[in-house]
């Protein structure tokens, strides 16, 4: 027997009405929070765009700064080259190590009990404050000596390894088990199966994950602060192993510190270049990764 009259009109009353209002408030609040998060991102992007776009020109990207007491002119070419070099060396170190860790964790059941502590260690490393990493590398490689780009790359590599290892592991696990079975059934050993079948199948995803890691490393300032910050800002240095190389994050840092407005403007321009690179890298890598995840046959 129904406790309310079933023939009454189907509108909310009393307690239900109150709950509906609450429901709307909660939904509105959640949406507002999401909008706020997106708004913050958009505000940052907009600010950098507005303040930096006036600086962007072909000369800006291809000439070195001319920092002689606020002289107008020059660009950030040496910083772009330097950053590229630092990232290249860091990737050369982080990619093989990250891939090998992932291979060890997913392909070799000897990992077994070691897998969880190793994954935990990688997660902790990922969350380690980058200034601490910079300090560690400074103490390890540079204390009492000269700053080198290599040390900066080393610090960046430490930051990149957990990222590369995680994406690679994910991509390796997506490779269907039956491919490995087929190879084993042909009398091919584990290692050869990994190198000849599993890694090539996961290659696209591995590279995309590397691009994501590069996008992160490109913007890290703290590790470079201690390891690669004392350089000649007006010249191009390519001796990564012997000296500190100019790089974009440090350039932004020092330029904004300077009393000359022309240097501030240059900093904004450099910030725009950096942000554009990271945004483009992130967006394309994530889109490609999503597509690759869908394409792997299951």
């Amino acid at each position, binding site marked *: 027997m129904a406790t309310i009259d079933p023939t009454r009109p189907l509108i909310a009353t009393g307690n239900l009405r109150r709950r509906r209002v609450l429901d709307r408030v909660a939904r509105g609040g959640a949406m507002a929070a999401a909008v706020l998060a997106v708004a913050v991102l958009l505000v940052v992007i907009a600010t950098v765009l507005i303040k930096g776009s006036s600086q962007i020109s072909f000369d800006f990207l291809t000439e070195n700064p001319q920092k002689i007491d606020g002289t107008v002119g020059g660009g950030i070419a040496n910083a772009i080259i330097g950053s590229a070099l630092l990232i290249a060396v860091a990737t050369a170190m982080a990619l093989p190590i990250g891939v090998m860790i992932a291979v060890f964790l997913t392909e070799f059941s000897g990992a077994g009990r070691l897998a969880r502590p190793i994954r935990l260690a990688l997660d902790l490393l990922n969350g380690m404050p980058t200034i601490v990493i910079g300090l560690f590398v400074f103490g390890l490689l540079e204390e009492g000596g000269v700053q080198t780009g290599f040390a900066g790359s080393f610090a960046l590599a430490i930051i990149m390894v957990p990222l590369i290892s995680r994406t690679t592991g994910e991509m390796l696990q997506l490779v269907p088990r039956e491919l490995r079975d087929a190879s084993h*059934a*042909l009398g091919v050993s584990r290692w050869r199966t990994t190198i000849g079948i599993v890694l090539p199948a996961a290659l696209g995803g591995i590279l995309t994950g590397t691009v994501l890691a590069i996008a992160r490393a490109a913007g890290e300032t703290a590790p470079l602060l201690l390891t690669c910050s004392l350089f000649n800002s007006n010249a191009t240095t390519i001796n990564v192993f012997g000296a500190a190389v100019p790089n974009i994050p440090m350039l932004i840092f020092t330029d904004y510190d300077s009393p000359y407005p022309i240097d501030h403007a240059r900093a904004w321009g450099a910030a725009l270049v950096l942000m554009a690179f990271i945004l483009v890298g992130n967006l394309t890598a994530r889109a490609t990764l999503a597509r690759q995840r869908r394409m792997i046959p299951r």
Partner: protein
Amino acid sequence: MESSRPETDVSDTPLMAPLVIGEQDPVSLETREVVFDLHDINVYYGAALALEDVTMKIHKNVITAMIGPSGCGKSTFIRSLNRMNDSISGFRLTGQALYHGNDLYATGVDPVEVRRRIGMVFQKPNPFPKSIYHNVAWAPRILGMRDGLDERVEKALRGAALWDEVKDRLDRSALGLSGGQQQRLCIARSIAIEPDVLLLDEPCSALDPIATASVEDLMHSLKRDYTLVIVTHNMQQAARVAERTAFFSLNVYDGQRTGVLVEYDDTTTIFTRPTDKRTEDYVTGRFG
């Protein structure tokens, strides 16, 4: 060729299509070399007993089929023959599994070498994401058979009755082939390394009837050079293809299901004059 009239009374069984037994003569086993000699094989996954006390011999150049209801350990059994179960955690095998007199599970045995000689074709065709040529050529090259690779690939593809269909597109991706062609490619891939034994785990269950027929024809010609062991859900397929058939079933002990080998004999005998009632019930369709 019709099956001979069964001596047991099956007049109260549900209607079934007549079983067509293949035209093989019953195998005279005394002269055949024994390839697998298995004694009291027990397989455990952790604490659970999956297969109990399997004892049988498998002979050279004979097609041996394993039939039985789902979950009775046929796949577990066949995968134990070439150490493919090693990667499953908790797997343990007791008893003696002799392959040409050598214990497969002795310490010091290299499972990679075991699989070099005992190949396997899986239920779902699993070609590598490479070209047709490289699918067949990859393993031989790795195993050191680099001379005459082209001839080896052609011979394998001919042996798998696939050469004529793919000879003009060897460098196209193997994933573009049809299901039946992919499965024959997997067979070609396996025979390219010249194994001794070929294990086939339900090779046709993912294929349409025409592709199935072509793979079954293939098996008849393959048995000249290889020993074949096939697991099949399809009784008629066992009847068409195999000379010897092993019937597996399930025993239930306190809720735990364990596979057992019920009967193992010539195919004709299994399907027309089975000794065990469980076999008779299964092949006449009363259960399973």
